[in-house]
């Protein structure tokens, strides 16, 4: 099918793009188009105005600072995946991106677009939560920073206003003595996850887990921190018992009701297995 009619604008500055969004409530930014255009082809979305961000200056590029990786919103997913500096600062980035769609989609799809789209099954929002990242956005009232914990409000919904443009995604560097892992299960390669888990495990003396950050996708109405599993791992030596306990604890986070893909009970079991796999791999990489 083909998209319904819309007005098309290709502004060159963020200010211009924000003004165009503010002038039409049904206006939407167009980034890589890898989610928006299929939805428009199916006429599930019919924005009155499309604000193409492709010509806006200064929205792409990757900067690695002492504390974080700063990714311009329009940076293509494939560019981030193959960026040596970004992946040295946080190796979980490339591991997660390999699971997002297919190469041809990642060549066009942007990092900011995936976060703004906020599909509850998407991998990048889950990565942002697990790493404690944040985004910068610009709207009519100016610029602000939103922490990942305050960003995702529902499936395909963020706390950003319709008039705000996400300009940058920030991922803190991998903390010292910390291992990382991403595990997901999808029916076909490149599909959205039935469930996925990002794990960061920090170990201290004697291999004791001193910190754990886990997040899951595909299991609730948004990406969620798996705090119950984190609690079960912290203070343990990430032994078999602790892994089993973390998996069991995580099940409570699988709140998505039965759907065509899977039952809630199945997703909960799947989540428990993925938590165990991700946590054990992350712990091995943390050493100790």
């Amino acid at each position, binding site marked *: 099918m083909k998209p319904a*009619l819309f007005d*098309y604008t290709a502004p060159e500055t963020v200010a211009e793009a924000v003004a165009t969004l503010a002038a039409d409530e049904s206006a939407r930014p167009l980034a890589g188009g890898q989610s928006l255009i299929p939805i428009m082809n199916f006429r599930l979305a019919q924005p009155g105005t499309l604000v193409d961000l492709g010509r806006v200056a200064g929205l792409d590029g990757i900067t690695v600072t002492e504390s974080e990786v700063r990714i311009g919103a329009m940076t293509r997913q494939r560019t981030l995946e193959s960026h040596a500096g970004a992946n040295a600062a946080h190796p979980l980035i490339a591991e997660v991106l390999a699971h997002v769609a297919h190469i041809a989609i990642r060549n066009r799809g942007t990092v900011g677009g995936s976060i703004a789209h906020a599909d509850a099954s998407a991998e990048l929002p889950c990565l942002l939560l697990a790493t404690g990242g944040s985004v910068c956005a610009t709207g009519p009232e100016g610029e602000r920073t939103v922490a990942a914990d305050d960003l995702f409000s529902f499936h395909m919904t963020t706390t950003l206003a319709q008039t705000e443009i996400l300009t940058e995604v920030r991922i803190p560097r991998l903390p010292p003595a910390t291992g990382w892992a991403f595990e997901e299960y999808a029916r076909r390669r490149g599909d959205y996850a039935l469930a996925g888990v990002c794990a960061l495990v920090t170990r201290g003396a004697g291999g004791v887990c001193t910190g754990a950050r886990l997040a899951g996708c595909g299991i609730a109405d948004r990406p969620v921190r798996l705090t119950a599993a984190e609690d079960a791992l912290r203070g343990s030596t990430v032994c078999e018992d602790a892994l089993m306990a973390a998996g069991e604890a995580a099940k409570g986070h699988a709140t998505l009701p039965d759907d065509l893909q899977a039952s809630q009970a199945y997703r909960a079991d799947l989540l428990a297995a993925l938590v165990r796999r991700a946590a054990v791999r992350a712990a091995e990489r943390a050493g100790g």
Partner: protein
Amino acid sequence: MARSLPSKPIPAASSDPRREVTLTVNGETLTRSVSPRMLLSDFIRHELGLTGTHVGCEHGVCGCCTVLIDGRAGRSCLTLAVQAEGAEIRTIESVARPDGTLHPVQQAFMECHALQCGFCTPGFVMAILSYLEETPQPDLSEDAIREVLSGNLCRCTGYKNIVRAFRRAVELRDARATGGG
């Protein structure tokens, strides 16, 4: 019962507003006036008559509309023609040499019987071409190749021969580079 005739005459041309777009397709720079909602796939097929780029699903899943956009594989069904302003597009029509000599990827598909109906083939060829340009020394394990091919669907071959063709394409390319083929 006869179907009633449409009450209004069918317009001879689209009444959509138009916008000019200038882009390069297979080395030729051209300017056309298009509706902003025209997909790049439709632009390539209907405006330019390059029907080697196929259209299957129009939602990014099947991969048969894959072309090179600024040197990298992308879905032409998920790109608006107006988004391609200033871009360099390559379609399957540009892949063989003008004298008809097949590109190593095409040659490999032929030798390995990696196509039956051929509907998916342009998409596979463009995706592999893009990947080999990005990664000249690819991992040739079954798993790695299947990962690269996972963005394209074939309803005929069962993929076995397409995996073989991928390996053969690398061989043929290397042989040509050293003057062998």
